[in-house]
């Protein structure tokens, strides 16, 4: 896709609030945006280094909890005499804390992935997510457990021109998600189109060969894991400040599955894949909601997924790219044929 098309898409997204009035549609767009950011971060690991993290929601949830806790303030009784107190901090600061904490967790899991790969890596990540969920559920002093963290300040608080009421809260949230999504996309693009990205792809294609040409496997895996986790954490923080309540259910496996489906159906290992997947699987459930029962809806959802995996195993984006290339080739070919036959005709005429 060329640069112009990319900027047109961005411009279109920026102007959405000019014509979209329906609050509910905003909600759909914002949730879709948040999960698309999550899918983009997962794609960095799954699509480029080839490591399937089935506990990706852990980073998402850690981001959500960190950002909420820092912006709400909390106190922890470490010993009988000493209590660690954090005063409520501005939302932007909490957001960056979320990035750092989930990035650190990514570093930890990345270090583990040096020792275990493939199926074992998948199991480690699932367990990691489950352990974090249990901690969130049971560490009531800190996380309020199933009572959930309430009254999380909205994202726009602290950004002056948004708070002033020039924009409704949903529009402000929409722009925040869009901005974070754009930055995340640019970071991932920079990363995968550089030498680092080349090394990651080499690693995915043939690890021992990558090693033999001098790729430092651990370093790039860890780097990918950190970046991916931090972006997922950013998505989690956006989520927390948007819905303004966080409970241990943010760690549910279904969220990871949603992200994996977005990445795989869109096309893993392509920049546009998670965006397309996010668009389809973010909007589809909402579109079908009016027409069919929830149970039927899930069946359709599943059937569509099976069809995509069956007929477009590489995902939608690579399939479209291939179709486009073939079409262009055929067009060039026919153009050449016509000009050739024209030339022949002229010769005959002469």
């Amino acid at each position: 896709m060329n640069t112009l098309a990319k900027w047109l898409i961005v411009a279109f997204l920026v102007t959405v609030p000019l014509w979209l009035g329906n609050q509910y549609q905003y909600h759909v767009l914002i949730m879709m945006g948040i999960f698309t950011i999550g899918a983009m971060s997962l794609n960095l690991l799954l699509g480029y280094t080839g490591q399937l993290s089935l506990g990706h929601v852990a980073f998402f949830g850690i981001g959500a909890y960190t950002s909420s806790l820092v912006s709400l303030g909390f106190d922890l009784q470490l010993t009988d005499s000493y209590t660690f107190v954090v005063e409520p901090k501005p939302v932007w600061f909490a957001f960056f804390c979320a990035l750092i904490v989930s990035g650190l967790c990514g570093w930890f899991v990345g270090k583990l992935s040096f020792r275990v790969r493939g199926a074992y890596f998948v199991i480690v990540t699932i367990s990691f997510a489950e352990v974090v969920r249990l901690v969130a559920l049971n560490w009531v002093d800190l996380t309020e457990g199933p009572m959930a963290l309430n009254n999380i300040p909205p994202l726009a608080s602290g950004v002056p021109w948004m708070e002033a009421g020039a924009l409704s809260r949903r529009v402000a949230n929409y722009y925040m998600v869009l901005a974070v999504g754009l930055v995340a996309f640019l970071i991932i693009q920079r990363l995968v189109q550089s030498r680092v990205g080349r090394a990651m792809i080499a690693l995915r294609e043939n690890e021992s060969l990558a090693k033999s040409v001098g790729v430092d496997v651990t370093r790039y895996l860890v780097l990918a894991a950190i970046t991916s986790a931090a972006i997922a954490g950013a998505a989690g923080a956006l989520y927390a400040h948007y819905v303004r309540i966080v409970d241990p259910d943010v760690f549910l496996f279904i969220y990871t599955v949603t992200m994996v489906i977005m990445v795989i159906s869109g096309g893993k290992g392509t920049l546009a894949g998670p965006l397309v997947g996010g668009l389809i699987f973010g909007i589809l459930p909402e579109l079908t909601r009016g027409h069919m029962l929830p149970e039927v809806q899930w069946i359709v959802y599943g059937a569509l997924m099976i069809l995509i995996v069956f007929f477009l195993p590489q995902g939608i984006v690579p399939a479209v790219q291939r179709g486009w290339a073939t079409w262009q080739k055929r067009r060039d070919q026919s153009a050449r044929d016509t000009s050739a036959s024209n030339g022949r005709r002229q010769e005959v005429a002469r």
Partner: protein
Amino acid sequence: MLEVDNIECRYGKVDVLRKVSLSVGKGEFVALIGANGAGKSTTLKAISGLLPPVGGRITFEGEDITRASARRILEMGIAHCPEGRRVFPYMTVQENLEMGCYRRRDWKHMSDDMDAVFDRFPVLGERRAQAAGTLSGGEQQLLAIGRALMSRPKLVLFDEPSLGLAPNNVQKTFEYIMEINRQGTTVLMVEQNAYAALEMCDRSYLLESGHVSLEGRGDDMIHNPHVQQAYLGMEV
């Protein structure tokens, strides 16, 4: 230049190399021959750092590289061209070559070197934008060789460069390796095709079940009755 001193290697609990020693001098062409499972490829892996030995010592230009990382060893000037024409199948030919000089920073010379590879193998030049997995076996082998040379190594380890190639491609590949050697790159080659290897090389080592059983100049080895009988299929 390269001294391998009594190294031992294991895959899990299985001893593969038992006290293998060999040396390669600067500019030499050394062949490593032997039957399947004798430990030829393992020796190369131990040298290039893919499988660090559990005992013994490897030095390169006076420096101990026994436990150095694969990356460090590559930076010191040893390139490994692994067995079975291994390329990155979904990368283009050009990207594969770029991976070969992954550790290098001198962009200008890199493109010169790449042009040199394309000059040498025009077929790769024609397909520089094609995915490497779509090349034929022989072309993939040429690409793997080209990639190994892109790091401007002082010593190249070739692991069975003729494996699975058509006879005319085998000849071409061998000629190319000899030319690399004539131009000053030291070569250590593992080869099943013992006769061809012994004809090409300066010196050679015969590896049998994990240790060096014989060494000598290539043509002396060709006339050795044991080698003739076991590896060249001649009646003595």
